[in-house]
């Protein structure tokens, strides 16, 4: 079996699963008391059936090795360290943005993304990130008036 086809099979199974979940959730849509020629279940049923059919076709293509996993040329190995740093930045951001506020959470996110892209100057990245996040906060929250939430530093600005 060719390299990458295990991943392709997993993706195809994922598509079928989404289709099944859509179908299952469709049965949970309550029948409408309001009059409607086409009820709220018709389109969801079509989407569910299509996703299951497409997923099965993908599964067959992946199985037969007819599906090139990479769009452009030869596959390069996945850099799990880079993905790890990115994942850390994203999870940190979503977990602590409410507690620390936009500026500090974004500073950490920025620096971990920079790290994922191979930067080793973490102190410099943190400094740039902090200034960048501060400017963004002032620009968006204060000038454009978009609510960016409260936080440790935001209350002093």
């Amino acid at each position, binding site marked *: 079996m060719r390299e990458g086809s295990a991943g392709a099979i997993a993706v195809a199974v994922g598509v079928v699963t989404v289709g099944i979940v859509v179908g299952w959730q469709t049965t949970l849509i309550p029948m409408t008391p309001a009059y409607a020629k086409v009820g709220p279940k018709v389109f969801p049923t079509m989407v569910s059936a299509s996703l299951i059919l497409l997923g099965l*076709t993908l599964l067959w293509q992946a199985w037969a090795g007819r599906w090139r996993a990479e769009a452009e040329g030869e596959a390069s190995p996945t850099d799990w360290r880079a993905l790890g740093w*990115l994942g850390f930045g994203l999870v940190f951001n979503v977990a602590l943005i409410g507690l620390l506020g936009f500026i500090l959470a974004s500073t950490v*996110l920025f620096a971990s*993304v920079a790290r994922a892209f191979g930067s080793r100057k973490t102190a410099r*990245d943190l400094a740039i990130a902090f200034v960048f996040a501060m400017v*963004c906060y002032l620009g968006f929250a204060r000038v454009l008036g978009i*609510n960016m939430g409260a936080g440790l530093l935001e209350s002093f600005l």
Partner: protein
Amino acid sequence: MDTLAQLANGFGVALTPMNLVWSFTGVVLGTAIGVLPGLGPALTIALLLPITYKVDATGVFILFAGIYYGAMYGGSTTSILLNTPGESASIITSLEGNKMARRGRGGAALATAAIGSFVAGTVGTLGLTFVAPIVVDFALKFGPAEYFSLMILAFVTVSAVLGNSAIRGLTSLFFGIWLGLIGIDLQTGQARFTFGILELLDGVNVIVVAVGLFAVGETLYLAARHRYGRDEILPVKDSLWMTREDWARSWKAWFRGAAIGFPIGAMPAGGAEVPTFLSYYVEKKLSKKPEEFGHGAIEGVAGPEAANNASAAGVLVPMLTLGLPTSATAAIMLSALQSYGINPGPQLLMTQANLVWGLIASLYIGNVMLLVLNLPLVGLWVKILAIPAPLLYGGILVFATIGTYGISQSPIDLILLYAIGGIGFLMRKYDFPTAPVIIGMILGPLAEQEFRRAMTIAQGDVTVLVTRPLSLTLLVLAALAVLSPYIYRWWTRARS
């Protein structure tokens, strides 16, 4: 003539100082994000959607249109000097443009790209000006059944015909339609696919999906693949003034490119890739020096760049006249219209005359601004390319957070953003196109609405879709678009 009077009125709207500022901001921002690899007009417009709460619709659409046109100009600079296309429609430009830059002819390549973009952008905008009212007259005859069939045709062409695989394109499309169905069903008031999460009752925000796919997914993909290594930025050694021979070889290519780009962009299929490929092929066939192709032929830059810009104008025809978006950018613009409570469709030219004609007039003005911004000031844009990748993508993800967290300050939206980013990563890795997700998400609920209207009028008789001649024609075209490659393959196999 009525169209000219409307256009004059549009110039009156577009030339007000405030709208000139919006247009200028748009073209500057558009050029910048066009130059930067990894940032596109769809993502930028999605990130700017929150300003629809603060600014009037005309100003916002003039801004968005400036970004849309500007990105086309900026993309060519990157593909010529860096060989990394800033956006998909510039892939062809890099074929010849980068070779020209390597031979020390970067200045001429930039000049023919910018002037060609200006010429074709203006031709395309003229086309939009005069074709749009005709399409509207035609579209006013459409009933819900025709609309539904037209949307089916657009669904099929954007997902199954363009791209590498019809199956994967359609999978993206149906995933998008499903995302669009999440939330309260407006006709019956029933909640669909909310999984008991209150935030999902209002539906999934298109900002979250666009930013998740285009910013988070793309960043994950690039980081995991190490595809951010920068090529050297080629210096511009020669003058930006084109020689007499350059002009002679360019001008026909510009007009041919415009003639190819505008109609294809205006079709319900849309897309800028097909016309750029087609224009390249035509120029190669017609060139007196075909041996130069592959080594830096100026026609190979002039034609595709012109086709690219003319098709951008073409895409606005179905968007403004039918409410039919055929690119991710147009789909997001359409959702901006909806957030103003404006119904897209053939009535738009009448009910929102100031908006539409002001927008069209601003395109003429924006094209002139872009020519000035991109020729003498090209050195400024090249400097943007010097931003190191770690800082660039760090900044992009912080912007992604602003765009999402700024909607509701809810961690649910951020979690959804990252989940869709993860899906975007897998889609990129396994070669699923992402634009059909956005188009399906915006157009899917509209298609459902038209289907219901058609069924209500026909009292539940589905055959109305095939008994009305226009509707049947559209469905036959859609079927042909999907099946013709298979029929062709079967036919050639049967003959041999």
